[in-house]
């Protein structure tokens, strides 16, 4: 493992473990009152990991789009590799959001799936970025693959906020009663600290993944280059 990614990965992992400790042993439990009974909402603990995962995925998908735009602007191959690596890492985190989201929906609302704006957005995201990989594998020529990949990564990144806003638009859909809100008011002191530590750890860990992926892409390119040298040689 390269030094930079090793340091980032271990720092990220340490922070994530600290996040687990803070979430379970320091942050206060959320309590809801239902019919005069006080219930500890244990499922709320999922929040401390689920939301950092979601935000990390956003960061990397947006980065993928930005690098894609930079590739189109400069035609430098390295930007295209950065875009691809960022989208792939972002996609891993999108998948994680789906897994954890489904589990949370089950724990909080007693159903496996709910057509709720955030979950819907991520389902669309999953499908859209699956399309990104299908598109890349469906183009043979390397330069066209890079071009179309970069273009679609931009379109997809633009579409993310639009999907989210549209999800809240629909007046026809039944509204599920909100069991708890995630608004800032309920997040103070130890809760916020636990959340921020997890958030930061997740970002560091994801960055290390991104560096590894980028190394792999670059090494592959070197191999192609050497192979050509041998053939021409």
């Amino acid at each position: 493992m390269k030094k930079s990614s090793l340091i980032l990965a271990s720092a990220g992992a340490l922070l994530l473990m600290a996040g687990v400790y803070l979430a379970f042993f320091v942050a206060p439990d959320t309590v809801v009152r239902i019919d005069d009974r006080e219930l500890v909402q244990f499922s709320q603990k999922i929040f401390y990991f689920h939301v950092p995962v979601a935000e990390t995925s956003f960061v990397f998908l947006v980065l993928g789009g930005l690098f894609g735009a930079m590739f189109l602007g400069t035609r430098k191959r390295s930007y295209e590799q950065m875009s691809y690596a960022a989208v792939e890492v972002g996609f891993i985190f999108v998948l994680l959001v789906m897994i954890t989201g489904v589990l949370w929906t089950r724990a909080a609302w007693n159903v496996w799936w709910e057509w709720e704006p955030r979950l819907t957005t991520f389902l669309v995201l999953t499908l859209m970025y699956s399309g990104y990989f299908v598109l890349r594998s469906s183009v043979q020529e390397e330069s066209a693959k890079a071009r179309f990949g970069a273009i679609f990564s931009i379109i997809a990144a633009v579409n993310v906020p639009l999907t989210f806003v549209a999800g809240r638009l629909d007046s026809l859909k039944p509204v599920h009663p909100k069991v708890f809100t995630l608004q800032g008011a309920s997040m103070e002191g130890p809760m916020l600290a636990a959340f921020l530590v997890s958030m930061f750890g997740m970002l560091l860990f994801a960055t290390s993944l991104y560096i590894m992926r980028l190394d792999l892409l670059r090494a592959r390119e070197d191999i192609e280059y050497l192979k050509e040298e041998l053939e021409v040689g």
Partner: protein
Amino acid sequence: MEFQEAWPYVVGVYMSIWAVLLIYVIVLQNKLAAVKRELGSLSKAVERKG
């Protein structure tokens, strides 16, 4: 929801995050190692050729 009902899902969330991330790291490291090996043998071959 009370603790008894919720804990499997909470544990499931935390485990699945670690599992997916670790699998991804392992896959990446394996591929990197393989690529490094190929790179090494290729550059030797290029050197021999001069």
